[in-house]
C-alpha cells in the first residue's frame, strides 16, 4: 500500500445559492482524480483551539501527487471560480503516512 494523499478542508459558506454551483462543478475534478470522501460534513466538536468552520471534509486521493494535481486542474480551478465570494475556505493538501502506528 503506497501512501495516499488527502485534502483537509474547512469551509464556511456565506452564499449557499452560489455555492451550489461550485458543488456541481467540483464533481468532474473529483471524479477525474479518484477522490473519495472520508469525511463529508458530519457531527464534530472543536475539542481544542478555535477558528472552527461549520463544514468540514477529508478527501482521499490515490497519492499526494494526484491530490495536488486535482487542486491545480483546470476543472477544479473552474469550480473555485464558481464559489468566489460564496465561502471562506481553508484547504490543506497533505501527504498520507504509512509508518508504524500506536500499538
Amino acid at each position, binding site marked *: 500500500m503506497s501512501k495516499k494523499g488527502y485534502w483537509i478542508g474547512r469551509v464556511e*459558506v456565506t452564499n*449557499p*445559492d452560489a*455555492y*451550489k454551483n461550485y*458543488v*456541481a*462543478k*467540483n*464533481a*468532474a475534478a*473529483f*471524479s477525474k482524480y479518484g477522490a473519495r470522501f472520508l469525511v*463529508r*460534513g458530519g457531527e464534530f466538536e472543536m475539542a481544542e483551539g478555535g477558528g472552527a468552520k461549520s463544514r468540514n471534509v477529508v478527501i482521499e486521493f490515490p497519492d499526494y501527487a494526484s491530490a495536488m494535481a486535482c487542486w491545480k486542474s483546470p476543472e477544479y480551478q473552474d469550480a473555485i471560480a464558481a464559489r468566489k465570494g460564496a465561502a471562506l475556505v481553508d484547504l490543506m493538501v497533505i501527504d498520507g503516512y504509512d509508518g508504524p502506528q500506536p500499538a
Partner: protein
Amino acid sequence: MSDAPRIRQARPHDLPALPGIKTAAARAFGDLRSGVTPRRVSVEAMAILAEEGTLWIAADAEDAPVGFAAATMLDGTLFIADIHVSPAHQRQGAGRALLRAVVDYGRWAFHPAVTLLTDRLVPWNAPFYASEGFVMLDGARLPPDLAAKLAGDIARGHDPARRCAMAKRL
C-alpha cells in the same frame, strides 16, 4: 443484507445500461400506465449529469448498475428526472437508498428543495415519496419549469388526474 444494492456515483461505463433499466422498470408498471409514451433516457444527457455529480447508481455485488437516480436543477430546486430500479432488484431498498442519496446531496449542495413528478396512486410512487417526507404540491401553483414538465408528462399520455408534483423542503 449483503445483497442490498450499494449506492455510488455514476461512472462513464455505467451509462449504456441505464436506458434498459428504465425500460424494464417501466414495463413493471404494466397496464397501470398503458398509453404512456415513456421519455427516453439519453446517454448523452446522463453523461452530463454524471459529470456534475447528480447521477447515482444502485450497484449489485458485481458493481453492475441495477438502478439509478438522475437529478437536474429546475426552478432553483433539485429535480429528480429519473429514479428506476430493474424489476429483479426491486423491493430490496434500492429505490429508497437512491432517493436518500439524492436528498443527502441536495442538502450538501444547499438546494432549498428536492422536487419530482409521480403518480398519486401507485404505491411505490406518491405514497412511497410521502413516506420519505415529500408533500404533494398544488398543481395550479407550480413554478414555471415544473409546470412545463408536468404538462409534458400529460401530453405523453399520463392521466392528468393522477400525475402530480411533489417536493421535500431541505
